[in-house]
């Protein structure tokens, strides 16, 4: 097993065991989305129109939920020291941790979205478009979140700072994710235009996130 797959396997194992955050994200997602129809009332047309936006907002909050412990847990038990001085490049280590986090919290959201979309009166084509945008967009949320998680690593109650730092950075992802999902349902712009920009945002965050997070971790070790 290479050092990087070792990190990936370890983090996924921890996430799915007792005390791990894997199911918390998807449960939170479920609860938030379930509450919306109670608050808005049974206006099916309204739910259908704002459904994608609500699912995207809930996914955004849910994917940030477990992120604050991503590096803080390793910092608190001393693992981060060994990760920092290891032979594997820190950027790749950070990316592997991000990938493990997405596979255990982001991917379950994508899978749960079409089921929970029924609550918001989403029909099959809309649910399909939504799943596609979440599949492409949630990795961006995780990898942008890596930066905040790395900056907040030494702080107690870092989760609040994380949300304040990261949420503004996720605005473009949110805009184009919801735009693409809406475009597939109501138009008038084609689905491809916002969707391509969403893909570009994700690709950029996959590169920028690990480098920025690794730089922040190195800086904080001082």
């Amino acid at each position, binding site marked *: 097993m290479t050092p990087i*797959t070792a990190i990936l396997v370890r983090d996924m194992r921890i996430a799915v*065991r007792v005390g791990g955050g894997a199911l918390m994200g998807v449960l939170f997602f479920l609860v938030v989305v379930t509450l919306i129809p109670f608050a808005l009332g049974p206006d099916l047309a309204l739910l259908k129109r704002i459904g994608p936006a609500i699912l995207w907002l809930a996914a955004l909050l849910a994917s940030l939920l477990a992120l604050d412990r991503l590096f803080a847990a390793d910092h*608190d038990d001393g*693992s981060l020291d*060994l990760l920092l001085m290891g032979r594997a490049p820190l950027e790749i280590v950070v990316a592997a941790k991000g990938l493990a986090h997405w596979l255990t919290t982001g991917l379950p959201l994508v899978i749960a979205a079409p089921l929970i979309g029924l609550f918001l009166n989403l029909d099959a084509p809309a649910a399909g478009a939504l799943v596609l945008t979440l599949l492409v967009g949630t990795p961006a949320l995780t990898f942008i979140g890596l930066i905040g998680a790395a900056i907040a690593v030494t702080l107690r109650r870092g989760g609040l700072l994380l949300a304040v730092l990261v949420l503004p950075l996720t605005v473009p992802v949110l805009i184009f994710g919801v735009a693409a999902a809406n475009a597939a349902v109501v138009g008038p712009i084609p689905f491809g235009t916002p969707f391509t920009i969403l893909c570009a945002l994700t690709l950029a965050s996959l590169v920028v996130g690990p480098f920025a997070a690794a730089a922040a971790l190195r800086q904080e070790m001082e």
Partner: protein
Amino acid sequence: MRLSATDLACRRGGRDVFAGVSFSVASGESLTIRGRNGAGKSSLLRMVVGLVRLAGGRLLLEGGDPELTIGEQAHYLGHLDALKPSLSVEENLRFWSAFLGATDVDFNEPLRAAGLDVLSDLPAAYLSAGQRRRLSIARLLAVKRPLWLLDEPTSALDAAAQMRLGEIMQSHLAGGGIILAATHGPLQLDGARELNLDSVSAPTAVMEASA
């Protein structure tokens, strides 16, 4: 192989911790670092592995792999045990072995040496402080690294485990390894040289490790 430090200086949080620390340790030798609380023992070890930036001086590992940093050729045993409570004893050891680049490790051997072979399936959350310490020492045995940096290695260990650690350290030295250990208590290391940081805390004082 020889680790030499010249005129090391340490600054933490805007405060000069020590300056002018020089030492040189060759294969088969060990150095115990002593000093009062806050003298910079841990900072010195973290400096050697690259976790604290040098405020001055230089570090050199002669005879090591020139492609790797000193930290990448060293084992660092810090205050914290770097264990995940939800993973089992063996999973914790397996992870660090794989991450530190060891392949085809027989995990029974280091676990037996640490006295944890009967507990290998137990989640690390249920280990006592001494057992956690022994599990992190097993990491040093599972992956071969020439340089060992041990920060209070005997903390939480009982008398028998301290003796066992002494044997492990002696056999590492016999195999040509180098050990730097920061400690307050006695360490079962025959012929270890001593570096006392109390006498170098004045920023201009220079001192060599004495036998």
